[in-house]
């Protein structure tokens, strides 16, 4: 190893250990910065971890497949974390049950707006059909959106990128936007965050307020359901 330090890099860069470590350390750093700025929306830890790791991969000429071999252990936890949302939901069940009507109406209004607005805007911008279809499910969590894109014969990996970009933009914009609307009801604010920006919005909502986080988690789960039905319908009606 001593005569060729490069061979050590070749070995490590192919091992899952390196990329798992990089993911955790970069995120720990961006999260610490976010905390130091008292959770300023622009210090979004996902956004900064994403580009820092992305640049690192490009500079070292590492493929995403190699990176993902390590990062998949983190990615895998998305499923269990979704199940875990049952706990805050259970602990706040009284507040949730008492808001069931506004929740369901807002769910329908929000899901329809999310899908219809993105399809119409994308058509207006003259994006290719395949891109329009991949953007349509952008408000639901990555796994579900990829499934929807697949069933429409669109591009699942573009759908995943659209989901993450939407989540990050939603998480950045939600606090200043809601402050401007003057809505102080954290149930409504959280519900909107989870519906429009799925898990990244929910992560943001938990940073701001526990109740907002709970309602955000519910919105994210319910929207995954509604959007699965809505996207195929909207695409038939709206996409030429």
């Amino acid at each position, binding site marked *: 190893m001593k005569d060729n330090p490069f061979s050590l890099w070749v070995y490590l860069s192919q091992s899952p250990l390196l990329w798992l470590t990089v993911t955790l350390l970069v*995120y720990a750093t961006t999260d610490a910065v976010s905390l130091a700025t008292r959770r300023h929306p622009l210090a979004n830890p996902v956004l900064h971890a994403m580009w820092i790791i992305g640049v690192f991969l490009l500079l070292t000429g590492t493929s995403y497949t190699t990176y993902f071999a390590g990062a998949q252990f983190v990615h895998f936890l998305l499923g269990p974390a979704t199940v875990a949302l049952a706990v805050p939901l259970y602990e706040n069940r009284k507040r949730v049950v008492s*808001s069931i009507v506004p929740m369901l109406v807002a769910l329908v209004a929000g899901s329809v707006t999310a899908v219809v607005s993105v399809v119409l805007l994308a058509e207006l911008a003259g994006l290719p059909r395949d891109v329009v279809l991949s953007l349509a499910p952008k408000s639901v969590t990555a796994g579900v959106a990829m499934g929807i894109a697949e069933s429409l014969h669109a591009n699942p990996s573009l759908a995943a990128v659209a989901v993450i970009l939407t989540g990050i933009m939603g998480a950045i914009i939600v606090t200043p936007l809601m402050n401007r609307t003057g809505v102080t009801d954290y149930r409504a604010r959280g519900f909107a965050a989870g519906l429009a920006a799925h898990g990244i919005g929910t992560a943001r909502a938990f940073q701001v307020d526990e109740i907002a986080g709970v309602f955000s988690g519910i919105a994210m789960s319910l929207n995954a359901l509604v959007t699965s039905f809505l996207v195929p319908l909207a695409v038939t009606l709206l996409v030429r």
Partner: protein
Amino acid sequence: MLASLGLILLCQLIGEAVVRGLGLPLPGPVLGLLLLLVLLLARDRFALLARGPLRNDGVETASKGLLAHLSLLFVPAGVGVVQELDLLASHGIAIILVLALSVVVTLLATVLTFRLVSRLLKQQDAR
């Protein structure tokens, strides 16, 4: 702790199996969430169930641990953006503008509907 994580995974596993088996159009983990919720509610009703991870806040603590770092879990998928750089170079600005406008409109539509409906209900209750 281990039993609690096991219970969470078991809920997800059953969720995935049922969704696949019945061809349901919903994600397996969402069904797993409903299952865990039903288990927690059932535990309060039937003392028999209050054992293992369903006792002494076992599954509650494990779940909160997972949720404390929810943002981290999106990083690997987010880094996937490096695979779409060509597309972003040709259509990136349009895509980002479309997504940004749509997310703002969606946030506003949802929050305002929620507020409107809960106000209407309050007025009704007041009468």
